């Protein structure tokens, strides 16, 4: 994380709110929306059921490689999201993506795999608090009921017609929303409006 402050990594909704390295405490469990400092983003393609590939990737990513559909595994500085049967999105601390990619490429040498730097592709918005689920349901057709979508799950889906990756982090509930960067302002404004009836706050740093 030390590199985060050294990088000129401007948030995608900087016109409305500066991005946070750590989200501020939620005031009394209120519904809040913040942008996180854009993380390092790596797209990984490989056969996760090939034991050699799983070992190689696991060695670099602290054993993280979710092979079950729509699931996420994370450690302190890295989050791995399942995107498809042979595709993952790896989120690193800002600035760490280069080192992680180099390690992945070395570990996967000789295997049928691709490691691509997609940092800057998506913004990371964090919506948290009671009514977060209801807010999302206004524009997302995914069934977000706890029986169907729980902490540790992710989905590539559509929010108010914008393609997003959605990741539920905890039972607050807290959701990470990753729209493409050029859609981030639109998604931010749409969420701000959708939150209004729950007295939600889009927090500007």
């Amino acid at each position: 994380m030390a590199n985060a402050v050294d990088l000129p990594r401007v948030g995608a909704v900087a016109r409305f709110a500066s991005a946070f390295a750590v989200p501020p405490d939620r005031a009394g469990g209120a519904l809040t929306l913040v942008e996180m400092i854009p993380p390092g983003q790596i797209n990984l393609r490989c056969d996760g059921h090939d034991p050699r590939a799983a070992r190689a990737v696991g060695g670099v990513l602290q054993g993280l490689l979710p092979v079950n559909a729509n699931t996420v595994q994370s450690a302190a500085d890295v989050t791995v999201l399942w995107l498809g049967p042979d595709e993952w999105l790896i989120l690193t601390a800002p600035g760490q993506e280069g080192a992680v990619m180099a390690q992945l490429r070395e570990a996967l040498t000789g295997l049928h795999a691709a490691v691509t730097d997609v940092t800057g592709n998506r913004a990371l918005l964090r919506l948290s608090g009671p009514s977060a689920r209801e807010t999302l349901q206004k524009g997302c057709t995914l069934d977000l009921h706890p029986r169907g979508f729980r902490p540790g799950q992710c989905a590539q889906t559509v929010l108010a017609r914008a393609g997003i990756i959605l990741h539920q982090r905890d039972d607050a509930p807290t959701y990470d929303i990753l729209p493409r960067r050029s859609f981030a302002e639109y998604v931010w404004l749409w969420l701000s409006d959708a939150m209004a009836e729950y007295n939600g706050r889009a927090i500007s740093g």
Partner: protein
Amino acid sequence: MLLIHCPWCGPRDEIEFAYGGEAHRVRPADPSALSDAEWADFLFLRANPKGVHRERWVHAHGCRRWFNVERHTVTHEILRVYPPGAAAEPDAAVAEAQPPQASQQGVRS
């Protein structure tokens, strides 16, 4: 609105998908050997059945994978979803739902 079961992601709303037309069309091995009529048949003519239709869909806003759907074109009921490359043989339910229709087959060469 259809609820389509992506073979990889599970049930998702139709808006996440894009339609890819009739499935299991095989490109002629040697197009230059075909007559114009035969080539036009490959390019433009489709079965367009009133009944069970096997068609391709892509999970455009999800995993971006292609797969096949067996859908009844009248009721929109989805009878089966199967990955690309899987057998196209009709199962019992499909054979029952789609009796052979001479008029449709007559159109195809």
